[in-house]
């Protein structure tokens, strides 16, 4: 089966600094790929290149067989197929939830209002927020806003969804409600590329883990083998940092004296 997304010898610079080096990555349709790695390793930049928010400087990137790094690429078309969810939600603050959801379908895709609205309502119900359809973003919690942001992308009927540290700004209770939505999409067989620091979630939801450091992909493996038996020393070191917290001794009740 051929890949839906394929990076080949992909390079990206910020000025002199090379942030992505010779990236080779294939993602099949329906696959859930989680990208892990230390901050600044290029994970987010990789996602942002896939929907044209960043410009690449070499190599090749194809979506469903079509080369994206050509001048002729219509990024507006691509972005309708590649949904993106950001760390800080970025809902449009001056629009109600429903207006946020319908902006793309009505203005970009020129769909009928009743049809787009029916879809938006169904998706809102699915994430448990149908009662918030007329609320404004600032009236919602972070977790609610993030679920709305996911629905906003889904309303465009994308082939792929990109999640860029979407739980990093949320408190633990809200993390759960957002992760459940993403897990649901994974179960439905949607193609997902996820950048996250939620290790347990990565392990549970991923078909494949991609480990990056300093702009390179160091390791690609199935989640179980990555978490139990990482191949590179750098990945071992990275995972140790996360197991450190869990391995802290449980404090017995302190003696007050």
């Amino acid at each position, binding site marked *: 089966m051929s890949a839906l997304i394929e990076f080949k010898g992909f390079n990206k610079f910020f000025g002199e600094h090379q942030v992505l080096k010779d990236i080779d990555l294939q993602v099949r349709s329906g696959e859930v790929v989680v990208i892990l790695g230390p901050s600044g390793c290029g994970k987010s930049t990789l996602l942002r290149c896939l929907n044209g928010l960043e410009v690449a400087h070499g190599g090749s990137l194809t979506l469903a067989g079509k080369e994206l790094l050509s001048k002729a690429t219509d990024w507006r078309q691509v*972005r*309708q197929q590649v949904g993106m969810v950001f760390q800080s939600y970025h809902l*449009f603050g*001056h629009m109600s939830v429903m207006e946020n959801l319908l*902006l793309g379908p009505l203005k*970009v895709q020129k769909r009928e209002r009743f049809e787009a609205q029916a879809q938006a309502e169904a998706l809102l119900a699915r994430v448990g927020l149908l009662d918030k359809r007329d609320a*404004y973003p600032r009236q919602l919690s972070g977790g609610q806003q993030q679920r709305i942001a996911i629905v906003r992308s889904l309303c465009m009927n994308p082939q792929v969804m990109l999640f860029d540290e979407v739980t990093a700004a949320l408190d633990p209770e809200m993390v759960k409600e957002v992760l459940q939505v993403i897990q649901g999409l994974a179960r439905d067989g949607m193609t997902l590329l996820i950048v996250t620091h939620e290790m347990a979630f990565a392990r549970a939801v991923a078909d494949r883990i991609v480990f990056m450091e300093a702009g390179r992909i160091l390791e690609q493996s199935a989640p179980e083998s990555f978490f139990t038996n990482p191949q590179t020393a750098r990945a071992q070191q990275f995972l140790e940092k996360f197991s450190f917290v869990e391995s802290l001794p449980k404090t017995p009740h302190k003696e007050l004296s």
Partner: protein
Amino acid sequence: MSFDVAFILSTLPAFLKAVGVTLQVGLIAIATSLVVAVINTAILVYRTPYLQRAVGLYVELARNTPLLIQLFFVYFALPSLGLKISGFAAAIITMTFLGGAYLTEVLRAGVEAVPAAQLESGRSIGLSEGQLLRHVILPQAGILSLPALFANFIFLLKETTVVSAVAVPEILYTTKSYIALYYKTYEMLAVLTLICVLLFLPLSLLLSRLERRLQHGQFGS
């Protein structure tokens, strides 16, 4: 010191007319300034070559020269170039020259205050640059600019007193005329002050209420 109330009453019809002229000059100038400012802001936001520098130059020139001198230039210097205009026209042109520059700065600041993340968010659902401007940038920039915009509206209204210098019969010109004719200095200055307070203060309050209501409507709380 006597205070001639009967005289004051006899001047009120004239002052009522003058208030009309003040409002007329002020409101027309605000409207034309806004048009100038929107065009300038579009030029600045899209970084239109050459025009962008021209707008920058205009804004600096208009904001760093006194209104009175601008007015004299338009009213006395332009006719010597063969352009004869009335005091009223000179007043509108000059006020627009000044107001356009100030409002350009206000709108530009509003557009720049829209977070870059909002633009990315809009692009990521496939909005074109034009759609982004219309549905995301302008509504948000408008709301962000409201306080400064309204403050400048009041500022422009108050500045209309300067056009008394070219015989536009607004409130200050009317006051000065009565003083020159009848030497009723205290009475007329008292009337002028009262008119200013009655005119600008309620307007100021009205605009700040409007501002809160619009922001509420746009952001929901």
